């Protein structure tokens, strides 16, 4: 069978998988009865409903003709992974090294996600954004964010 719409095919699959996953997970919780619905009642129904809708999307993707097959296209793995990694790393480093160190790392790293990377631009961003964030978040809104690394402040 030929897939008529790649986009719909994969999203249908995603919906079915997530729906069934949640419905299956819901079986771990008490289902209760209609008169006394338990914690598993609502997610179980929702999950099944979503799987059904996902099935409809899948069906359409396999049956209804489209002009160009609606390709998903190439995944932009570089920006995706770079952004995700730099954000996660920032979350890891911030409580340990403080804003003054982890923020420049985040900025330089995520700047690499773009097509054009120049050290000069990155340095400008680092200076402006680090000072700006300090002024806005720590000075202005007095959020409890460490500024300097733990090993310095003790």
């Amino acid at each position, binding site marked *: 069978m030929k897939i008529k719409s790649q986009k719909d095919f994969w999203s249908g699959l995603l919906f079915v998988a997530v729906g069934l996953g949640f419905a299956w997970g819901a079986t771990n919780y008490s289902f209760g009865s209609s008169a006394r619905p338990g914690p598993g009642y609502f997610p179980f129904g929702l999950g099944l409903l979503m799987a059904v809708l996902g099935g409809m999307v899948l069906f359409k993707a396999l049956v209804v003709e489209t002009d160009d097959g609606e390709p998903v*296209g190439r995944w932009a793995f570089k920006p995706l992974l770079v952004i995700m990694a730099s954000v996660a790393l920032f979350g890891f480093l911030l409580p340990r090294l403080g804003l003054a160190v982890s923020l420049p790392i985040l900025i330089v790293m995520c700047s690499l996600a773009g097509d054009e990377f120049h050290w000069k631009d990155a340095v400008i961003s680092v200076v402006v*954004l680090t000072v700006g964030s300090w002024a806005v978040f720590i000075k202005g809104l007095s959020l409890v964010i460490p500024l300097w690394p733990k090993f310095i402040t003790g």
Partner: protein
Amino acid sequence: MDLLNNLGLGFQTAFTLTNLLYAFGGAVLGTLIGVLPGLGPVTTIAMLLPSIYALDATPALIMLAGIYYGAQYGGSTTAILINVPGESSSVVTALDGYQMARKGRAGAALAAAGLGSFFAGCVGTIIIAAFAPPLTELAFKFGPAEYFSLMVLGLIGAVVLASGSLVKAIAMILMGLLLGQINTDVISGVPRYSFDIPELTDGIGFVAIAMGIFGFGEIVANLSRPSEHREVFTKSVSGLWPTAQDFKDAFPAVLRGTSLGSILGVLPGGGALLASFAAYTLEKKSKGRPGEVPFGQGNIRGVAGPESANNAGAQTSFIPMLTLGIPPNAVMALMVGAMTIKGIQPGPQVMTSNPQLFWGLIASMWIGNLMLVILNLPLIGIWIKLLTVPYRFLFPAIVVFCSIGSYSLNNSAFDVYMTAAFTLLGYAFFKLGCEPAPLLLGFILGPMMEENLRRALLLSRGDWTTFATRPLSAGLLVAALLMIVVVMLPSIKAKRQEAFKEED
């Protein structure tokens, strides 16, 4: 006159220095992000949610509201001057507005948009003030069954008007509802889907989802496209004021747009986007004076109508949020999130339990609109300069604000990791052509919906027909069903696709 007393209280609240400052700040920020394409009010409000921890509820909401309607103004400025709609609701403004600008009548177009929006904003504010109390009265008559049906209607309404496939949009709502199930069950106290991760027993942070999907997901999507070449309109904006003839042409269009926008804004799923599309169609259909410029070639009515409509719609979409606690669109969903962060349970009781917040917010909308007119007309030149900020400087800034924001939610790295994870989901949705906004609505409404469903079933002793036999609830469900049927009808389906084609 209750209305006057209430508005009096509102203006008293709104005219304090702090609140004026936050209204101004929100309006400026809103205009700013409206001007910048690729940075919408949803992203910005999501970005700012953590910062409102430090603020009182009233200034915080005033600021967020300012961002929302400020974005409508800013979006139209760029739509007219450089044919880049900063906001999806300004897409139709670009059709005639840019043509006017090319003919050297940018000033007239901008003034028509600004003044039309201001007029619409004033009317919208009065409508909210007048209709919110009776609607709130009605809301108190709602039982769990009615609330559940109303949420169904709200969610369905939100998707039938969205672009793209209806089934996919409903599936996205369900995914949002399911993600909302990751929490500790309110009734039995059982943690669900937590995988023994303590942070998950409180549920996924709403901000993490919003930032990951709308903030970072969009950045990745933008970066994956070849860098766009923006056509900057070099001609300076001269002759700000429209001629007397312009006023004569534009005024009826403003009136029509305002009424249409006010009505559509209240409907679930309505708001600014739909209002502007509908108003443009209406203007095209209604007869103008003989010899006026045809539509698509710089007709001032094509600017004034949709611009008034989108502002009126933006304004009146606060009504369902303020009175029922049910967000009609993603921005309002974020406002509900903001209220919950500040410990206010959104719903009909807000008006009685926090009258200052309620009326202050409404009064501040009018003040904010006034500020926007004053701000926008003289400052247009500066906004245009902003457009020259290259994306390679813009996106690291967004990443920084979102990252710090998500960390500061609970001062824990866990929320940052979640945000990073949702980036993947957001980008996947982009690649698969799934609109993420319904997911957010579902996520916000999920826990409320479940609670009301289960309470309704408890009250009816497990009888599902309770939703159909209680008249109010049945009416709401029928309305939801009608919406689906109407959208499924082929002729309308074709029109709907046509209307949204221009958006892509």
